[in-house]
């Protein structure tokens, strides 16, 4: 994969070039951090879709649970921020246990069962005022601390943290995808029985993917809580945290590893810089239109579409004949 060759370049750009050039431009840094936050969720969502075979319309549930878990742990129990973020992920994974029974349901039921959970958690967060600050929310959530002399609470620090998180997620995704478990997960999508009959515990694997996706989303939510320093139920569990990652993943191609990440950066940035300027209230209409068009014309995403066209053009140019032996 050509990805392998570009890894050093990517790392240099992410950890060297961007900080050097942009660290004093607060506005752009904010957009980057936010788009990477979306990228993290998009990746987790794609993981569940690709390897778990389940489309979810309620990832905001895990995002919110992660946010609140981490915030409450740091504010009410004095847990340091970084461990609290981890617990945020764990909290979201635990919350996903409630979704487990939905695994055996057909696609649409699962997608909407998760949506119901998102709403339930939002209402619970609003009601448990003593714990969650209720509708008023939590203010003054601790920032990222200073470590090794570097203030991670700064904009640059937040950027470095979220970038690292997303990269780690990408690595985990890739590791699973190329493992035997990943193979089994891929095969399971078309029919679980064919895998069960060779010894694959398909139910267990699906559950693991659910936990992992929830865990990842929870960590992103926790990160966001300490980045924004403020939480309220309608924000933490907002449908936006479900919607934009979906658009991003579909746009970038949710079957690939880089698709959701690039999709998120592009979609979020364009939405904030261009769409929002065009239609300040209701600019998400363009995202909806984008999603609709993509499902109709490029369900595998626009980026794979481009690369397919590029490689086809290349092959025609080199006069190579199509691969033989395929039964079409």
């Amino acid at each position, binding site marked *: 994969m050509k990805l392998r060759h570009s890894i050093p370049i990517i790392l240099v750009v992410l950890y060297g070039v961007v900080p050097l050039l942009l660290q004093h431009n607060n506005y752009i840094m904010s957009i980057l951090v936010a788009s990477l936050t979306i990228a993290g969720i998009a990746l987790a969502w794609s993981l569940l879709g690709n390897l778990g075979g389940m489309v979810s319309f309620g990832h905001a549930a895990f995002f919110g649970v992660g946010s609140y878990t981490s915030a409450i742990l740091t504010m009410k129990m004095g847990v340091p921020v970084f461990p609290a973020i981890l617990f945020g992920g764990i909290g979201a994974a635990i919350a996903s246990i409630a979704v487990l029974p939905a695994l055996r349901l057909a696609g649409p039921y699962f997608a909407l069962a998760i949506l119901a959970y998102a709403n339930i958690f939002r209402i619970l967060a609003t009601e448990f005022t003593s714990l969650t600050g209720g509708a008023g929310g939590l203010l003054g959530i601790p920032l990222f601390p200073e470590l090794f002399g570097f203030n991670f609470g700064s904009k640059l620090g937040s950027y470095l943290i979220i970038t690292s998180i997303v990269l780690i997620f990408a690595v985990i995704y890739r590791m699973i995808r190329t493992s035997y478990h990943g*193979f089994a997960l891929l095969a399971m999508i078309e029919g679980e029985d064919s895998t*069960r*009959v060779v*010894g694959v*515990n398909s139910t267990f694997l699906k559950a693991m993917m659910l936990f992992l996706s929830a865990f990842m989303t929870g960590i992103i939510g926790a990160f966001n809580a300490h980045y924004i320093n403020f939480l309220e139920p309608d924000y933490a569990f907002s449908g936006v945290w479900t919607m934009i990652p979906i658009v991003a993943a579909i746009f970038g191609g949710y079957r690939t590893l880089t698709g959701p990440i690039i999709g998120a950066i592009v979609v979020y940035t364009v939405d904030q810089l261009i769409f929002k300027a065009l239609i300040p209230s209701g600019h998400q209409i363009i995202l909806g239109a984008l999603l609709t068009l993509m499902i109709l014309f490029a369900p595998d995403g626009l980026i794979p579409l481009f690369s397919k066209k590029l490689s086809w053009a290349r092959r025609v140019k080199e006069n190579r004949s199509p691969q033989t032996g*395929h039964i079409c």
Partner: protein
Amino acid sequence: MLTLNNITVQFGGLIALKGVTFTIRDEEVLGLVGPNGAGKTTLFNVISGLTRPTGGEAIFNKINILNSPMHKRARVGIGRTFQIPQPLQELTVRQNLQVAQRFGTGKVNQDKIEEILNFLHLEDKADRDAVSSLSLSELKALEVGKALATEPQLLLLDEVLAGLETASKRAFMKTLSELNSKYRISILIIEHDIETISNMCPRVCVLNYGQIIADGTPKEVFSDPEVIKSYTGGAHD
């Protein structure tokens, strides 16, 4: 190795299997025949775990397997092929075998995979996509390969030869006849072709309307008037 006791399967008003009882021993090759709809595939489904019987018990090497889920049965040594091949999607032939081996035995042994590929004459297609680049007989071979990769002690072959034209059939039959001696496993094979069964199986069971009506050598069984009636006369709707 496998003992079935009074297995009954009822779907609503339809009785698919009724009081099926028999035993298959280590390294035995047993043919299972019967008219269409007699319940042969249902029996396989019960043994492999796709269908829960409404009554009866199944003991495999002293384990009551009816309590085990499908994947556990595969791991303790029951391998099964499907009548319509179900290759693992999005994977190559080799990956199909690797997944079967990894989850059926707990680890991957590349040498054994090569051996299976060679035995089934799939080496050339090993790294091609399983779903799109295989002919029907190769898909059937892959079915057997996946089951073999799980290192079974009992192999259930469900009409592996159906749909193949004569040349492929003969070649495949030769492969199948080596299975028992090479891998030292018990084989329970469903086939329609009486000649094939008679050549391959020293023992045959006949299923009709969900019940076993004969159990013996091919000669005994195919000259049994009950059996002949079930194939020719028996009122089938």
